[in-house]
């Protein structure tokens, strides 16, 4: 009995490091294929890839923040801000490169503020980002009077259309951008000093400080990257929505966090990577699409999604029992 238990714990440990998420992706896909007509069609897969890309880009920033032991709830406000800024400035005739730079700088600034305040005054990131999110969301509301404004640049609409192709690849450019960004971030995390500092800070901030690798700059940079990526997700979403809407980011409040965790990353900091975050975004998108396919009411969909998130995470994302942590 004991041996079986030890064996199963070891198996769980193995699975948690990657293959389990892929198994979950395949399992959900097969369930969807047998339960929903057209779920495995090429068009719907391409549409899912685009949705997963938006979620994945926002969740990448969240992963960086989670790795240093924080959490970023200003993501939806920044997505909304990026979305509205892009649509409005384009509507006023500004060139796209300038718009994108402006949006990214704004996201970087808000994120850096989050990180600086969090580490300078030693206050919980959750509440700080909630407050800055409220401020940014409010400013966007004031700027747009809570209406649909501006328009998306035409190249961006093609960029995010699910029927678009990238050279020979049958995927929309936004998906390729996401995958390239994720690969680059994974490389930075694994192979560069900056990435290792991030892990050191997340595992034990005090030890990191004594080793002279942690501190405010690491924290600030992680949050700033999160802000930048959220703003970028907002810009890309403009191509999808066609115009700027202040609350376009609202669904991403918890789904960005959920994607990070469904990939198997730990919210306690120091454990996780970008690959898992990308897998988490794919699983979450698959589940959401599956529930839409069952033609349930929006309320019932939400309830079932909550239960499914718990079940999927419970199948590979459980912590070790306390007795074996000593």
């Amino acid at each position, binding site marked *: 009995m004991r041996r079986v238990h030890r064996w199963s714990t070891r198996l769980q440990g193995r699975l948690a490091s990657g293959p389990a998420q892929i198994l979950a992706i395949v399992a959900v896909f097969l369930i969807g294929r047998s339960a929903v007509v057209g779920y495995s069609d090429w068009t719907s897969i391409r549409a899912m890839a685009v949705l997963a890309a938006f979620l994945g880009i926002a969740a990448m920033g969240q992963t960086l923040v989670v790795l240093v032991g924080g959490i970023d709830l200003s993501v939806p406000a920044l997505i909304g801000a990026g979305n509205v800024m892009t649509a409005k400035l384009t509507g006023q005739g500004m060139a796209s490169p300038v718009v994108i730079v402006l949006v990214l700088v704004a996201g970087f600034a808000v994120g850096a503020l989050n990180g600086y305040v969090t580490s300078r*005054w030693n206050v919980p990131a959750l*509440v700080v980002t*909630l*407050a800055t*999110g409220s401020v940014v969301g*409010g400013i966007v509301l004031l700027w747009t009077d809570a209406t649909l404004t501006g328009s998306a640049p035409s190249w961006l609409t093609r960029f995010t259309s699910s029927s678009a192709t990238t050279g020979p690849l049958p995927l929309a450019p936004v998906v390729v951008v996401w995958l390239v960004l994720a690969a680059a971030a994974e490389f930075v995390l694994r192979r560069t000093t900056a990435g290792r500092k991030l892990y050191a800070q997340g595992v034990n901030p005090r030890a990191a400080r004594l080793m002279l690798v942690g501190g405010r700059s690491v924290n600030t940079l992680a949050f700033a990257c999160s802000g930048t990526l959220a703003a970028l997700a907002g810009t890309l979403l403009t191509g999808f929505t066609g115009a700027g809407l202040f609350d376009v980011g609202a669904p991403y409040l918890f789904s960005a966090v959920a994607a990070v965790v469904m990939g198997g990353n730990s919210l306690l900091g120091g454990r996780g990577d970008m690959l898992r975050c990308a897998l988490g975004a794919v699983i979450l998108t698959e589940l959401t699409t599956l529930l839409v396919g069952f033609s349930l009411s929006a309320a019932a969909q939400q309830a079932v999604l*909550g239960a499914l998130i718990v079940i999927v995470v419970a199948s590979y994302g459980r912590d070790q029992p306390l007795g074996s942590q000593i």
Partner: protein
Amino acid sequence: MNQRYVHALRAPVARLWVMAAALVVANAVIAPDLLHGTRVTAMANLLAPLALAALAGVPSVLSGGGGLDLSVGPALGFVNVVTVAVLAEHGILSAWLGIPLCVLLGALVGAVNGLLVAYGRLQPIVATLGTFLVLSGLALVVLPQPRGGAPRWASFLADGSLGGYLPHILILPAGVLVLWAGLRRLGLVRLVTAVGSDQRAAYTSGVHVPVVRLGAYTLGGVFAGLAGIALTALTDSADPTAGKQYTLMAIAAVALGGNALSGGRGGMLGPLLGAVVLFLIQLLLSSAQVSSLWIQVVYGVILLVALCLNSAPRSGRRPRVTAAQGV
């Protein structure tokens, strides 16, 4: 002498008292009719669900391990919906039956969270995010549209006041504080604190960590049930979407109250005062007739400033290095 006052002001709770007092004065200057009897009752009714939601967030945060209860808001909203759409619908109008059932429902939600966290060994944010989604979905399934028809005890709680000054609704938070004091007396709160500050140390000293965590989440659920009762009293009706907004405000109040979100440190008074401060900020903004679009901006700025003012003072000592928790 002077030194002692400065020292006392360093305590987070003391600074919250000062903040709350300043906000009360500011409110009284802007809207002098605030202190009349009927207005006081109305204020207490508005404050009660937020204050109870903040208290409901305390035990889970205290129990550590990244403990956090996102489901507080939907749980209290669900209790509100069930009170009107299920209990009142089936003729359960008596307070003696209705109120315990509401508390029981809250406890049940809390126990599910606790089971998922303590025995399912899921990260608290994921487990409670799951119940958050399930409950906010279920509330809309049970009651798609807001509807009136709350039991009579709701309006009793909302309208009356003892001796014209002490609103009935304050029974609920007072009950929570008495219950908490009792648990503290029995040493149960200390168990939660021990688990929250270092779960491995607690485990090796013979504390049954999962049971303590389960208890903490269940207790939070009980308080959320009481918050649902307060929401029913406030609105005298049921609204399936009203509860959600309380989750983030409750967590903000807990953090503002000086409780460590990493667990193991903090009490009930701080979060209660934190909720009062948040409430007074909103009250001030609305009675100063700030445009509704500006409220969000100003609220965020004030929350940020209050948080920084109330942060732990930086000591001159070098921090001690301890083993990281939960890694």
